């Protein structure tokens, strides 16, 4: 190619919010349903006579997201109806925000291999999700479980210049929203529309823009951007085709995009204000309450973790799951050391879960219980390996750590003379092992150590036992 081209990308990202109920009714939120249509009521299935009633938590989470993305928070926000027919949309309109979105004019800073870039956030608005169609045989079925699940849509200005920046942004949103309890961001809970155009480097004018709709995997988004960018550049450089403003879809199997509809045939959604929902007024008091409940910005949090000596890989783990990030923060808030607690969470808890074939989402231990274990270890009541034993019982059976420790007799101090007595008995009971040890068999020492440990019921500190045993054997 002769010319150098520049990519210009803007994103619209839909994120499912972690609320207990749907946006306009009291049905459970997105994670509760198991079977099709078991999380549906007359309101979210579009029956006559039902009226939408705003879920306050949705407003709070949307505002929190706006604060995290440095947005202006609207003090007056309203809902509009977007009309279109599709069987997964029970009312034949979607309730969304057009005229007075909840957040505007934000900004997020990205660090990539190309340096840093500020991405301007145009707006964030609240809306309801649609249902799902399931096709089978000659019929299609509708599942309304997802209808009216709350979403926020985050719209950026066309400020991205590469796929790498787009991915950096999406990963940042994901970490932010997971650690902030805004969204669990699992598969399908974050969906993107990518607006893309290409222009000669240095040009101020935008090229012809196409929109690739509804992609949920970051990998697809990256591939789609690369494919679409190449298509645009080929069209400009070799005049392979005439670019038109249109909506396209990315096909995962072929790795290509294809046209869905162009500007002329684009639907007119006939937006208009929803008279069933009163304007929401966010006053100073409410805004302050949301602000004070807002979790720390992830940049500051990352900094704090790094300073405490937590590795980048561990931070990534902490940011990728709301449960463990919160467990860590809440345990630290109870007076535990940050780095130490991180090890308990990321090494010990993670190990126990892995052994049981579970994930961090299954972790039910409370910060109070974890803090109790850490304190027992810190105060020397039990050694660390006993602490870990207690942790296993807490994670697997939900026992109370202090009571469990007492019941198992872990908290009885064993002094050195008791250990010595036990050790002498072990030595006199195992003359063959002593003989083997003298003949240079390392395994024999291991067996003697094991026998001592067994006698001491795992109560004494293994390092102490090991030290004493070494001394004894040397003197033999």
């Amino acid at each position, binding site marked *: 190619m002769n010319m150098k081209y520049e990519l210009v990308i803007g994103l619209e990202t839909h994120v499912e919010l972690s609320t207990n109920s749907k946006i306009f009714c009291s049905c459970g939120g997105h994670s509760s349903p198991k079977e099709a249509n078991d999380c549906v009521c*007359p309101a979210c*299935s*579009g*029956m*006559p*006579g*039902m*009226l*939408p*009633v*705003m879920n306050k938590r949705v407003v709070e989470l949307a505002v929190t997201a706006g604060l995290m993305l440095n947005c202006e928070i609207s003090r007056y926000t309203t809902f509009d*109806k977007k*009309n279109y*027919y599709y*069987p997964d949309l*029970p*009312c*034949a*309109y979607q309730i969304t925000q057009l005229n007075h979105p909840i957040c505007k004019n934000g900004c997020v800073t990205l660090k990539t291999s190309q340096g840093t870039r500020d991405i301007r956030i145009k707006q964030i608005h609240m809306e309801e999700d649609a249902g799902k169609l399931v096709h089978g045989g000659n019929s*299609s079925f*509708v599942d309304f479980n997802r209808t009216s699940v709350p979403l926020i849509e985050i719209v950026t200005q066309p400020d991205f210049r590469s796929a790498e920046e787009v991915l950096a942004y999406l990963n940042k949103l994901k970490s932010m929203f997971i650690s902030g309890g805004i969204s669990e961001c699992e598969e399908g809970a974050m969906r993107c529309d990518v607006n893309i155009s290409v222009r000669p480097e240095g040009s101020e004018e935008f090229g012809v823009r196409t929109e690739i709709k509804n992609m949920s995997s970051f990998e697809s988004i990256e591939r789609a951007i690369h494919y679409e960018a190449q298509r645009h550049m080929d069209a400009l450089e070799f005049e392979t085709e005439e670019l038109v403003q249109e909506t396209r879809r990315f096909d995962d199997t072929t790795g290509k995009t294809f046209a869905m509809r162009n500007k002329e045939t684009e639907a*007119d959604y*006939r*937006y*208009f*204000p*929803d*008279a*069933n*929902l*009163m304007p929401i007024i966010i006053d100073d008091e409410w805004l302050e309450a949301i602000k004070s409940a807002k979790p720390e910005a992830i940049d500051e949090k990352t900094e704090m973790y790094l300073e405490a000596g937590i590795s980048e890989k561990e931070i990534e783990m902490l940011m990728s799951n709301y449960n463990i990030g919160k467990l860590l923060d809440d345990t630290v808030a109870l007076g535990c050391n940050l780095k130490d607690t991180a090890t308990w969470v990321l090494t010990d808890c993670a190990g126990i879960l892995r052994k049981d074939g579970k994930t961090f989402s299954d972790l039910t231990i409370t910060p109070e219980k974890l803090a109790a274990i850490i304190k027992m270890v810190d105060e020397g009541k039990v050694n660390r390996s006993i602490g870990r034993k207690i942790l296993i019982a807490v994670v697997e059976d939900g026992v109370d750590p202090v009571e469990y420790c007492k019941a198992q007799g872990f908290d009885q101090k064993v002094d050195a003379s008791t250990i010595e007595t036990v050790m002498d008995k072990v030595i006199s009971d195992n003359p063959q092992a002593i003989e083997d040890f003298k003949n240079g068999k390392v395994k024999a020492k291991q067996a003697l150590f094991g026998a001592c440990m067994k006698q001491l019921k795992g109560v004494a500190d293994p390092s102490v036992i090991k030290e004493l045993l070494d001394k004894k054997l040397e003197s033999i």
Partner: protein
Amino acid sequence: MKYYATKINDKGNIAVDDTILVKGFPATAGSRILDGFKPLFDAEAVTRLTNKGYEISGKAHVGEFGLDLVGEFSHYSEKENVLCGASAELVAKGEVKAALGVDVNGAPRRSAALSGISFLKPTYATVSRYGVISTAASGEALGVYAKDTCAISEIMTVIAGHDEKDGTSLKNAAYDYSNNIDVKGTKVCIIKELFDKADESAKAKITAYADSLKSAGVTVEEISCPLFEIGNTAWQILMTAETCNNISRYDGVKYGYRAKEYKNIDELYVNSRTEGFNFLTKAVILYGSDSLSKNRYDNCYGKSLKVRRVVSDEIKKILSSYNAILTPVCSKTEYESYDISEAFVKVFEEGIFTSAANLTGIPALVSGEVQLLGNHFDEKTLLSLAHSVERKGE
């Protein structure tokens, strides 16, 4: 002649228009599109009445979605001899003590006037719309048909008040529906432009009513306000647009009527809706959809919202000098049948008398074949004025 689309209880004392839901009983809204639909819950007003010991007699026939003049265009009236203004007639004949109706474009008020009974369309958002088959959410109101203002006061006191299931419902806990405040010295005005639209017999009703008010010590004056005309146009635009949107959920997919013949989802929609709606509803859908379209929105829907504000302010101004406005309910005192192809225009024309109350949310009381409009939440003045005339007639 049939009054009920569904009879519920022979001993019942309250009828409800078939646009109001009663759990487990078919709700048709007079339309084929809701054929077979049975709601899973009671309307809030029905719940409140039954909790107080009232019993629902049945679902009275209505015109399709309550959009016509007096209930003449129900899907069921094509097959059977269905009565126009069924609820009003049930009340007039003494079959029930009162009835509930949904007023979106004046149909219950007109039926009440033609049957010689009363109907109160209360202030917007004072009675929950939970369980009302909605058409134009921004102006529709659930109201009460009864023979006299005493019965209206009684029923309104039961059904009005905050309901958290309706997001528009006002937080006020109690409203005053008394009909016996002293009206001596109050002032009522007649709008010249509305008076002039009425025929001689309707004019005579107004004049006679004004005389009765005067003899009760009320001052009655004629004033001019040309804004009712544009206010009506604005409401017809808002009403058709909102109705078009709210009834778009009746698509043959989930419940109600589905066409027998279709090859794909588009045909399922088109055929079900073509066969399910009557001509008037289709006209409403077309006008409404047009005024919301991208190229027309600013000049139609957007402008109507501005007109709503202007008319609201003007009426507020009038009602700061007068306690009530006296108007005709219809241009004629006798109902003349007509073809459904003329219905949209007929309803538009007659809307001049009724639409201001839907547009601005003020209460409207039909009594003695005339209409009284009042300030928001000031139903007591309207009921007391009407009661003073009722007493004279006794």
